[in-house]
Structure formats: structure tokens, C-alpha cells
């Protein structure tokens, strides 16, 4: 009967309760859309620079990350290979030899980042093949190279032209070579687009006079969320004096930082939204208690313990809140799912600019369950905090005073 009592009380003032429930629904909907867009854009940012570039985990010779020179390269021996490839959750190991080179074509010269890669493996990690806008992809021991579109434009090279690369090889050896341009790639990030050169791993090892050596192994793993676990497992199975193993958060600290900053501003906006809704909820809870002082007085007079009365009022508040939250999630879920599969495109102008970076010109939505559960928690916690007021008034109430006409 206590539940019946609470349920009927909730709908005593239908309009007010409905407004309260719907305002919670609206807040949850708005918050879910906001967070879905935000988290979706983070997921895409992380995808662009982690999933399609660094990999979620990298293995280097110890000290390479702080001093990225060719002399800090290492041999990917069979025992390390076995440790890495048998690790649960690791789907693919992608060896790379990375360094710098001066690139020249006719009168143009520019510094570039050179990535020696195993073309097949690299493609499985970064889908680089799809980003080729002209020419073709590299073969296993290709002697030619792929250039970022920006770099190619600066050097004014075409497919088939031969560029000169100059650098310093392993242990100070001279590195110089002529490389035919096989293809042009368009990268999402300008930094890569203007600097990156891909060549086959054997060709890079020849160029840098570093046979069998690599600077890093990028790992493709089953789930980004498993990064930390896999990193620590790998660390426990390798010698930290020889090998350093890093997760993506350490590989792209600037990205992580800028996401965290943006995330904070998003959360501040959420709190403002909740504050506004919270005032509305508080108004309702306040009225619910205030206009029933006499009735509460009668209930205490005839022998209802305060704690029981408080429980009934709390139940009323919970009912409204749960209803609002459930309704909010029920409404947001199909909307977000729709936009997840049928994303909104930027308008044409913006779309062109964005797509020139090789990024799809859409607002990416996320369906991470956290988006929904977090709104639910936030509203419930708020309801609990706000219910403190009516509960406190019942605690303080004097029967005689509340019943005086």
C-alpha cells in the first residue's frame, strides 16, 4: 500500500509531475546527444591518429621514444616475435623503420619523415592503401616510394618521377638514394600529409644501412580498452632495460590532453544543463512537501513513523526521476542509433574543406553505453541530493504546528 500511496501521490498534480518528468526526459535527451557527438568525435580523432597511425601499442628499443634516432633501432628477433604474437588480444604486429630524410626533386627540397614498412601488414593496421589518390600501393620489397599529397605538391613530383633522398644511416653511415614515386597518399592530418614518405621495409633498411633493424613495432589489438592490460602483460614478459612498451595515451599525449580539455568543457556544459533542470526538480519537490504539511501532520499524529513518511516521499521522487530517465533513454537511443548509422553531413562548403583532409565530412555519433548510464547516474544523484530537503522538513516537522489552520 505504501507503493500505491506513493504512486497515486505522484500523479496528484498531473501537470506538475508531467512537466517534471518531461524536463528530466529532455535533459537526458539533450545530454545524451551532446555527449554522443562529443565522444563520437573523440573516437574519430583517436581513430585518425592512433588506429590509423601509431597503433594502440608500440614497442621500441628502450630510450627510442625520448631520442628518436636511427641508432636506437633494434632487431625484432624470434623470441620477441613469439612473445608479441602469442599475446592474447594482439591481432597483428607491424614492424617499422622510421627516420628523417631530406627530399629533393629538381630545385625543390624539403625535410620528410620516412616510414619503412611491410606493405601488407601496414595496410592491415592503417588502411593506407585506401588513401592512395594517384598511382599504386607498394609491393613487398618495392624499390619505389609513396608520398603524402602535400609533400608531392610541394616538390611538384608526378607518378614515375624519381626523387633524391639524403640522410644519415645507422652509426653515421651516409644514406643517399634515388627513389621512383609509385603513388600519392592523402592523409587526414596535415602534418602527415605534408611530410610522410612510405617505402618498403627492405628498401628502408638498405637506405639507412640498417639491415634487419627496425625502430618500432606497432600493434593492432582486438579492443582499444584492452591497451593497458596488454601493455602491462607485455612489460612483464620483456626486459625493460632493452625494450620499451607504450600505450596510445603515451604515444599521443597532446591528443589525449586536448581531448581531456574539450571533454572538461563538455562536462561543464552538462553541469549547467543539470543545474537548470535541478532547479525545476527542486521546485517540484519543494511544493510536493510544502502543500502537504497538514496531511503529513495527520499522518504523524495517527502514528506513522517519520522514517516511513520520508520513505514514501522519497519513493515519489524516485518514481518521477526513474520515469524521466527511462523515458529520456528510450527517446535518445533510437535517435542516436539512427544518426550513428545515418550520420548528418556537414554542409557542402565545410564538407569540401574537411574531406580535403581525407576525413569523412560527417558528425560522428557514439553509442558508447557510458553515455546513457552517466546521465542516469547524474540525475539519480541529483534527485537523492534534492530529496534531502523534503526529507529534512519531515524530520523537523512539529505535528501541532503543521496542522494549525
Amino acid at each position, binding site marked *: 500500500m505504501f507503493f500505491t500511496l506513493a504512486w497515486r501521490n505522484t500523479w496528484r498534480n498531473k501537470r506538475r509531475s508531467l512537466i517534471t518528468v518531461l524536463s528530466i526526459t529532455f535533459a537526458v535527451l539533450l545530454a545524451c546527444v551532446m555527449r554522443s557527438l562529443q565522444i563520437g568525435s573523440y573516437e574519430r580523432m583517436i581513430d585518425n591518429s592512433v588506429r590509423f597511425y601509431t597503433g594502440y601499442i608500440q614497442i621500441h628499443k628502450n630510450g627510442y621514444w625520448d631520442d628518436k634516432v636511427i641508432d636506437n633501432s633494434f632487431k625484432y628477433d624470434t623470441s620477441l616475435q613469439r612473445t608479441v604474437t602469442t599475446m592474447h588480444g594482439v591481432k597483428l604486429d607491424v614492424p617499422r623503420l622510421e627516420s628523417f630524410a631530406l627530399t629533393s626533386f629538381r630545385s625543390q627540397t624539403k625535410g620528410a619523415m620516412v616510414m619503412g614498412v611491410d606493405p601488407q601488414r601496414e595496410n592491415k593496421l592503417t588502411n593506407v592503401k585506401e588513401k592512395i589518390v594517384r598511382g599504386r600501393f607498394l609491393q613487398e620489397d618495392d624499390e619505389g616510394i609513396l608520398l603524402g599529397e602535400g609533400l608531392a605538391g610541394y616538390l611538384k613530383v608526378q607518378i614515375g618521377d624519381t626523387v633524391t633522398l639524403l640522410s644519415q644511416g645507422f652509426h653515421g653511415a651516409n644514406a643517399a638514394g634515388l627513389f621512383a614515386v609509385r603513388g600519392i597518399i592523402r592523409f587526414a592530418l596535415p602534418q602527415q600529409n605534408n611530410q610522410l614518405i612510405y617505402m618498403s621495409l627492405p628498401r628502408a633498411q638498405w637506405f639507412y644501412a640498417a639491415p634487419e633493424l627496425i625502430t618500432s613495432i606497432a600493434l593492432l589489438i582486438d579492443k582499444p580498452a584492452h591497451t593497458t592490460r596488454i601493455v602491462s602483460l607485455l612489460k612483464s614478459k620483456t626486459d625493460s632495460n632493452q625494450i620499451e612498451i607504450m600505450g596510445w595515451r603515451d604515444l599521443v599525449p597532446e591528443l589525449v590532453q586536448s581531448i581531456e580539455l574539450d571533454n572538461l568543457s563538455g562536462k561543464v556544459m552538462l553541469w549547467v544543463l543539470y543545474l537548470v533542470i535541478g532547479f525545476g526538480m527542486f521546485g517540484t519537490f519543494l511544493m510536493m512537501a510544502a502543500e502537504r504539511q497538514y496531511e503529513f501532520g*495527520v499522518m*504523524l*499524529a*495517527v502514528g506513522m513513523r517519520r522514517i516511513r513518511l520520508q520513505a514514501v516521499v522519497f519513493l515519489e521522487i524516485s518514481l518521477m526521476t526513474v520515469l524521466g530517465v527511462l523515458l529520456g533513454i528510450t527517446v535518445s537511443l533510437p535517435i542516436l542509433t539512427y544518426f550513428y548509422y545515418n550520420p548528418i553531413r556537414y554542409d557542402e562548403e565545410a564538407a569540401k574543406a574537411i574531406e580535403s583532409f581525407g576525413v569523412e565530412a560527417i558528425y560522428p555519433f557514439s553509442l558508447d553505453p557510458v553515455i546513457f548510464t552517466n546521465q542516469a547516474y547524474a540525475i539519480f544523484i541529483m534527485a537523492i541530493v534534492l530529496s534531502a530537503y523534503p526529507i529534512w522538513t519531515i524530520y523537523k516537522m512539529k*505535528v501541532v504546528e503543521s496542522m494549525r489552520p
Partner: protein
Amino acid sequence: MATLIEATGISKVYHKTTVPVHAVNNMDLTIEEGEFTAIVGPSGCGKTTLLNILGGLDYPSSGKVEIAGVDITDMKDRDLIDFRLSNIGFVFQAYNLIPVLTAVENVEFIMLLQKKGKKEREVRARELLIQMSMGDKLDSRPGELAGGQQQRVAVARALASKPRFILADEPTANLDSASTENLLNLMSQINTEQHTTFVFSTHDQRVMDKAKRLVTLQDGAIISDTRR
């Protein structure tokens, strides 16, 4: 007859204004089991204050109240609530009932607080409402009932907990004369047949005529006490 309520030297002083108000002024009052007592006097003479103190709804400024030998004057709030639940039935001037519960649910509610079983609650609530001539309104909500009907449900509720006595503060103040007569007849019938003790206040002459004992107050003091 055994003594049910014994109030000795009770006072209630309000200091809300510059001059203290002695709403109840050093009063002694004893109520015996089975009595049908009316507390009467003009408005402001202290009837409500007295009943609130006798019913453990308010603490006296001084003096003490014993109910069936139990001193309730220094009881803690929670114990007092439990004491009221099992010993006293209340009928107030108006708005006695929980608006969202039906008549029968309102009567059951008090027994639910007493943790009575569902079957027992239903049977007794029904019986009491029939006894109060409310058998045809069991499932009506208070808002659908006339004032006199609401008061009869309130009496049924007060009886439901099997209290030692029933306190009713001006139960007929909001009723027309027919409903007043009807309610008083039912109350006095219950008093006669079941020896339930009633203490009620009124300033209505017709109600006073039904009382078997008349306690008259003036300025917070008893000026006459007659039985018939």
C-alpha cells in the same frame, strides 16, 4: 471504573507575543474508562491545546500526563508516535483522510502501520465502515465524500487501531446539523455498546447535550465539570 487519563498540573505557555499566553493554566483532569466527555468553552479557551497535550501531540510547558499508568510527558518523539498508534484514535476537525486513498484504504492504512495482516485489515475495515453506515462508499475517495461522510470514515479509522480512547477536536465544526446529529449518535452508540472512551471538544450546544460529562474551560482553566 479505572482511570485512563490523568493530567496533573499541566500548563502550556506561548511566548510568541510580548505578553505570554497561558493557553492551558495549571489544570488537573482525570478521564475514566468508558466516559463520553465533551470539552467545551468559547473559541480560544484552550480546548485544542488541552486535547493535543492529552493525545501526546504536543508537550506541556509543565505538569505531567499519564495514560493507563504510562507517563507520556518525557517520551521521545518516536516512542510517542508508536504510543499514539497503539493507544489513541484521532478525529480532527477536517481533512482527516489521505486524499489519494479510498475510504476502505484509509481505514486499512492505520492497521498497516500496526503491521496487521492483509485479511484482517480488509475484514475489519469493511466491518467498521459498515458500522459507521459507510458500507456503500467503501471505494470512494475522500474528495467524493460529503463532510459528514468523511468524518464517519475518520471515526472508523480511529476505531480501527483498537485504541484505549478516541480524541476528537471539534469533529462537527464543519458539519450541518443533520450530519452533526448523525455522527454524534454513532459515536454515542459505540460508546454505549462497546464502552469506547471518547473525549471531544465542541462549542455546539446540540453536541454538548449528547455528552455524558461536560468539562467547561475558560482562559485555560476548568470552571465546571459535570456528569449526568
